[in-house]
C-alpha cells in the first residue's frame, strides 16, 4: 500500500471535508451525500443492535439527525465512520432504554432471512453451517451487554480494537478483555449445545 506523505490527505477524506464544510455553511444537499456514503453501515449496525427493521430505520434516521446537528464536533483529522458508529451505538442504547426491554435480537428473524436470501450469495451456504450460525446468533444475544457490543463491533462489523474502544468510549485494554471474555462465553455456549466439552 502506498503511504501518503504526512501533509497530504486521502482523497475520500478531502471529499468528506468538503461535504462537511458545505453542510456547516447551510448546504443540506451536501449532507445527503454523507448520508448516502454511510447509511448502509449505520443501518446494518442498528439492525444488529435492535429488534426489527422498522426500529432500525427509525434509529438510522435519528443517527443522521444527531450527526447533522453536531457535525461541527467532528474532528476531520480522524475517520468519520467510528464517529458515526459511536452515535449509532448511543442511539440504539437510547432506543433500547425507551422500549424498556432488552432486545437481544441479533438473530436474523424471518424478514431478515428473506432479505439475506435476496442479497449476495453466501459463501458459507449449507444447511449445517446456517444452523450453526443461528445457534451462534442466539448465544451472542445472551452475552452480557458490554461483551455483546464489543464482539459485534470487532468480529461482525470488523472494526479494529482501537476503533471499538473509541466507539464504546472505553480503553483498548477494557475492550480487549470484553472481546476475550465474550468469545470464550460464546464457545462455552456452543460447546454446551453440542455436548462438546473441549
Amino acid at each position, binding site marked *: 500500500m502506498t503511504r501518503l506523505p504526512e501533509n497530504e490527505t486521502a482523497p475520500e477524506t478531502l471529499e468528506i471535508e468538503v461535504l462537511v464544510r458545505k453542510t456547516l455553511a447551510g448546504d443540506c444537499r451536501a449532507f445527503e451525500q454523507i448520508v448516502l456514503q454511510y447509511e448502509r453501515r449505520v443501518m446494518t449496525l442498528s439492525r444488529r443492535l435492535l429488534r426489527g427493521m422498522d426500529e432500525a430505520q427509525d434509529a438510522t434516521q435519528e443517527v443522521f*439527525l444527531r450527526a447533522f446537528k453536531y457535525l461541527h464536533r467532528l474532528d476531520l483529522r480522524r475517520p468519520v465512520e467510528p464517529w458515526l458508529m459511536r452515535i449509532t451505538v448511543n442511539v440504539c442504547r437510547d432506543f433500547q432504554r425507551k422500549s424498556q426491554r432488552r432486545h437481544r435480537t441479533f438473530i436474523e428473524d424471518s424478514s431478515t432471512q428473506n432479505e439475506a436470501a*435476496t*442479497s449476495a450469495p453466501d459463501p458459507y451456504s449449507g444447511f449445517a453451517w446456517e444452523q450453526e450460525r443461528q445457534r451462534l446468533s442466539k448465544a451472542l444475544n445472551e452475552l452480557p451487554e458490554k461483551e455483546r457490543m464489543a464482539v459485534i463491533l470487532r468480529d461482525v462489523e470488523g472494526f479494529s480494537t482501537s476503533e471499538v474502544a473509541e466507539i464504546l468510549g472505553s480503553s483498548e485494554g477494557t475492550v480487549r478483555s470484553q*472481546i476475550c471474555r465474550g468469545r470464550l462465553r460464546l464457545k462455552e455456549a456452543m460447546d454446551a449445545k453440542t455436548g462438546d466439552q473441549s
Partner: protein
Amino acid sequence: MNCNRVKETLPLYAGGDLSAAEEDRIGMHLRQCGDCRKFYEGLAKQQSLLRSMRQTTVTPAALASMRQGLLPRLEAEQLGWRVRLERLLMGEPRRPRMAFAGAAIAVIVSAMFFAQLWQVTANPTVAVFEGGDTLRLPDYREWVVLGTASTGPHSGNIYVSPSAYQEYARHGKFPEGTVMVLESKAASDLGTTLEASVKDRRFNEGWGYFRFDMTAEGLAKKTRVLPESAGCLACHRDRGI
C-alpha cells in the same frame, strides 16, 4: 507453557488480536498440544461464523424508505441556541479544542463579571437608596478611616469608601454617590448613633445628611434624609466642611 493460560489467551489469538511475539509463543504451544489445538479450532470456526454475519442484512428498499423519512426531517431541523453558540465558538471544525478554549474564556470572563457584580451589590461602596431618599445602612467597617472628628456635636471616626478615597486622592474631588460615615458616641442625649453624609446632587447644595439611631435590635437598617431644619447643612456650611 500452561494449557489453562493458553486457553485464556486463545480467543484473542483466534481473532488476530495478539502481538507477533505472543502469536509465536501460542503457535509453538499449539503445534505441541493436541488439546489446545482442538480448543483453538473451535474458536477459529466460531470466528468464521461471526465474520459470515457481516453480510449485509439491509436491502436497498429499506435504505430508500429510511431516506424518504430522513430528508424532510433534515430540512425541518432547527438548530437550538446552544448548538448555534457552540458552532460560533468552534469556528473551525478541524479544531474542536478551540471550542473548549472559547468556552473556558467565556466562563472566566462571566465569572469575573459576576464576581465584580457581587462585590458591588454585596459590599457597595456608594450610597444605596430605597425609594429615593431612604439610605441603607452602609457596611463601612473595612472602609478607609479619614480621620477623627472632635469638634461640634460630633466625636468619632470618619470612614469613606476606598473607591471614593482613591478618586479624591487622584482628582481632589469626591465622586457623586460618595458616602462618609461618622461613628459617633459623643452625643449623650442620642446615645450611640451612626451619621452619614452622601454626595448627591438631588439634595440641597449637593449633600444629604442621615442619622441611623440605635434601636432595641441595634442600629437602624435604613433611614430617611434629615430635613434642612435639622441644621446639618447650615453647620457644615459654616465650618466649611
